[in-house]
């Protein structure tokens, strides 16, 4: 009897712990967890200072009123950043009218500010035929700001075996009120486009 009670107690408590620590069975990895978390708890993006490719200081809140898609890159990246930036390029093409109407902006933030000078950021943008009016590349102005930014977006960057980095990759959506509202993975570009079409239309209806 005692064994039975103890077993039932441990089984129930244990299952509850597993249930809670996987967000009710929905997130088994850190990446899934951070995507789920921003969907359920959108949060305001603080006013960090960033330096853009034209040496101007900008903050994310400068783009209030537009949807902003943020990706994290380093310009010497050989792999996933290229796919991410390719995705932004494809957004630039598909959403050109929204970009013209100031409903959408694209921002690539470098987490390697020592190497990624404004000059290199500019080259990176040019490489993806970015229109500098709509697509900005920027780097944090200090390492403490960099840490704060990565921490806020829960982006984990680790050095890889080739002197580069491996990092959480995704498209981070900031809404016109300046809140981080969604994160899409590299492989979810189509879902991101559908999402954007929906929310931008909704925003337009709201304004008219």
């Amino acid at each position: 009897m005692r064994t039975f009670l103890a077993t039932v107690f441990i089984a129930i408590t244990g299952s509850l712990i597993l249930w809670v620590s996987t967000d009710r069975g929905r997130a088994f990895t850190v990446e899934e967890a951070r995507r789920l978390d921003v969907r359920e708890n959108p949060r305001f993006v603080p006013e960090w200072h960033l330096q853009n490719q034209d040496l101007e200081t900008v903050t994310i809140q400068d783009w209030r009123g537009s949807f902003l898609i943020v990706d994290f890159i380093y310009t010497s990246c050989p792999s996933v950043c290229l796919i991410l930036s390719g995705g932004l390029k494809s957004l630039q093409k598909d959403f050109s009218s929204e970009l013209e109407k100031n409903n959408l902006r694209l921002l690539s933030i470098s987490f390697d500010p020592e190497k990624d000078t404004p000059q290199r950021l500019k080259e990176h943008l040019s490489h993806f035929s970015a229109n500098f009016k709509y697509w900005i590349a920027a780097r944090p102005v200090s390492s403490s700001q960099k840490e704060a930014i990565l921490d806020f977006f829960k982006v984990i960057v680790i050095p890889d075996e080739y002197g580069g980095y491996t990092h959480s990759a995704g498209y981070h959506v900031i809404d016109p009120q300046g809140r981080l509202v969604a994160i899409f993975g590299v492989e979810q570009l189509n879902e991101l486009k559908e999402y954007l079409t929906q929310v931008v239309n909704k925003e337009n209806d709201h304004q008219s």
Partner: protein
Amino acid sequence: MIIKVKQEWLLLTAFVVLALPPMQQFLEQSMVTHMLVQIPVLAIIGWMLGKKLPENWKSKITLWNRWGITGMVLAVIIMTYWMLPRALDAAISEWHFELVKFVTVPIMGIALSLSWPLLHPIAQGVLKLEFWATFMRLGWLYLDLPDRLCANYLLGDQRILGQLLLLGGSAWAVAWTLRVMFGTRIVKT
């Protein structure tokens, strides 16, 4: 008696060495050493500690742990938790999860050492097979998966771990086959 005391001190020393920040960082910088060295050694420390528990403690615990069932359930839950990729990541980035790991994994070892001998042979067989299947499943998964499961580890690391798990699982399978077919005992279990 002197030897007994000595062995307990050894276990404690091993535990402290693992918990030392340089050792901890060294083992945790790779997914392979984190999962195949640090966690198993913590479990083994628990296992050996369980063998060293005073007899009257053991008999008291056994009242709550007939046929070893309670302890096995506890062990399986702790094992499942530390198989969650996000639990492993959390242990690296947040100190309180790390603390939980250093407490629960040895507890898992203790629970196993107290419960395994009490377990019915059929249950032992089923669990062994299930552990083996987990090795093979995870190994295959890690080899095959194009994405990283842990945000703190490289894809290459995950692949190596997959290979090692498959290799270990295969060695285990060969050992079993030899035993079943020819009665050769390579390992004790």
